[in-house]
């Protein structure tokens, strides 16, 4: 009965429901649009042609044939300037004497974007090797035959949607609980309830059910929007997604209770909740893969609760993983759940003392 009442009360608050969905949807929209159609990464290579002859012309046209390369040509000064501006990943200089004595192609690369420069250098190396063999009339000792295999074309959206689901789980858990509980404490609602013979576990059960129902609805809405509007490729099992989402939601609910227990007013609760949620949001591979982080940070952040949740959701939705396949993440999720529940029971107080 208490559960039913609290569900009714919660879902009548349409504004809150709307916003709890709006924010993840907005972020998904923004990030989804920015990266839309930009799913095949390309490197920008600038070529400075100082020879202007047959050889350099052939080099340039074969470079243009490489799909992953966006080729720009220009003078040494202008291309170097573009490199400094970050608009080129690599600038190759074809000297005037190329193919007639001189064999050196000088390449400048952008240190600021090592990932792309490395790709550009690898492409140039391969190209130079092949060109050398051709000039010398040598048949390479080894060749690589590539056979295309039809695979799901993973886009950034496929990475982003599970991350957004994880994010909304955290936000609902943390903020939904922190603000309502602090308010209920301040307005004396908790005290009024404590003056009845209400069993504490019934109360927490009702709150848990209310919030986790919200989490489940959010997962479904985000998934549907992802599928319909952003061509999200969902390969997994919805039930698994909900299970992970709901258990993960439990972590953040418990954290929220701990925070609302430790803080006396909304003014202190909000910064604490942000202090927890902001680093988690940016360090748990929600928007971007953690593989871009320095190694030590990757090591640290792989233990973040949100990393476990988002990785698990991603494995389920992208790889169609079973619960057994993500047992590592699930173990992490359960450990965090335990920690958060202990914290919540220690810190939660019924009254503003």
């Amino acid at each position: 009965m208490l559960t039913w009442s609290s569900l009714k009360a919660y879902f009548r608050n349409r504004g809150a429901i709307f916003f709890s969905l709006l924010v993840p949807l907005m972020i998904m929209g923004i990030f989804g649009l920015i990266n839309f159609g930009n799913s095949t990464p390309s490197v920008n290579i600038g070529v400075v042609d100082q020879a202007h002859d047959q050889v350099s012309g052939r080099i340039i046209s074969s470079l243009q044939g490489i799909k992953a390369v966006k080729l720009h040509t220009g003078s040494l000064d202008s291309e170097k300037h573009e490199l400094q501006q970050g608009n080129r990943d690599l600038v190759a200089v074809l000297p005037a004497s190329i193919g007639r004595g001189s064999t050196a192609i000088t390449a400048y690369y952008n240190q600021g974007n090592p990932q792309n420069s490395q790709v550009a250098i690898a492409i140039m190396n391969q190209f130079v090797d092949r060109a050398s063999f051709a000039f010398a009339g040598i048949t390479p000792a080894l060749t690589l035959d590539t056979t295309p295999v039809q695979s799901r074309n993973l886009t950034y959206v496929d990475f982003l949607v599970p991350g957004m689901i994880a994010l909304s789980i955290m936000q609902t858990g943390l903020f939904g609980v922190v603000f309502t509980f602090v308010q209920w404490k301040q307005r004396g609602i908790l005290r009024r309830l404590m003056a009845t013979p209400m069993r504490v576990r019934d109360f927490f059960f009702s709150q848990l059910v209310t919030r986790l129902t919200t989490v489940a609805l959010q997962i479904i809405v985000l998934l549907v929007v992802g599928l319909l509007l952003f061509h999200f490729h969902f390969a997994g099992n919805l039930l698994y997604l909900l299970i992970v989402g709901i258990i993960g939601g439990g972590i953040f609910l418990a954290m929220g209770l701990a925070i609302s227990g430790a803080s006396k007013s909304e003014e202190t609760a909000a910064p604490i909740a942000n202090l927890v949620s902001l680093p988690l949001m940016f360090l748990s591979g929600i928007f971007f893969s953690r593989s871009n982080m320095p190694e030590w940070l990757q090591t640290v952040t792989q233990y973040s609760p949100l990393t476990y949740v988002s990785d698990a959701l991603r494995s389920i939705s992208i790889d169609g993983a079973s619960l057994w396949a993500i047992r590592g993440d699930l173990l992490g999720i359960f450990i965090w759940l335990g920690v958060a529940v202990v914290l919540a029971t220690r810190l939660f107080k019924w009254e503003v003392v």
Partner: protein
Amino acid sequence: MSVSTRSSEGVPGTETHGFAIVVDGLRKRYGTLIAVDGISFRVKEREIFGLLGPNGAGKTTTVEILEGLRSADEGHVIVAGIDVRKDPEKVKNVIGVQLQSSAFFDGLNLLELLDMFAALYGRTVDAMAILRKVDLTEKAGSTVPKLSGGQKQRFSIATALVNEPQILFLDEPTTGLDPQARRNLWELAESIRTEGRTIVLTTHYMDEAETLCDRVAVMDHGKVLAMEPPDALIQRLLDKGFHKERVERSANLEDVFLDMTGHGLRES
């Protein structure tokens, strides 16, 4: 004038018959602060008992201990025959509590809230009948934020009646209400007492205590300074030779106000 903090009604703790509440030697400390300093008092059945005193006197702590919301350090507390210190949860079943700031889940209407409160006691109630008692049937489908101040307080009392309590605790029920609404609430309190319930009232309004209470206890610094019917306390003060600078006329400004604006409740 010095009044013993011991109740004058016999040896404490021996006879609880006829008393709704028996408190004997109650003590409560918060760190070094002694909030309640060994007080004793008894509340008779069907009595409206006032607990008066400035802020910080220990009223709230005392009431919260009686309600089973706080633990006591020392003393005996028997409420409706139940030892509160031994079984605080059991006490909650036989008392009703109206709190000063009575906010509820905003999303639910009055009927739903009453049903929910009843469920917390493992009961089902005729919510409409309870609303009728507090004159709120017209607002049955509204939510609490839409009620006026007096209506909120009446609804708060309604939630405290769902379990047919033997004892009702009212915490400053008329603070912030206009004179009409205050009188309306006093009538409600009287009618609840007529049903056979005992009422413990804390208030800062002396006229309220004088009108409603059969007996009042005046508390300060964690002790009970006096405990008698309001008239007896007034007489005692007069006997000491006290007299006001200005002699009270047989009407005051509030009477003027009510004469001009009427006793009718002003609620939308």
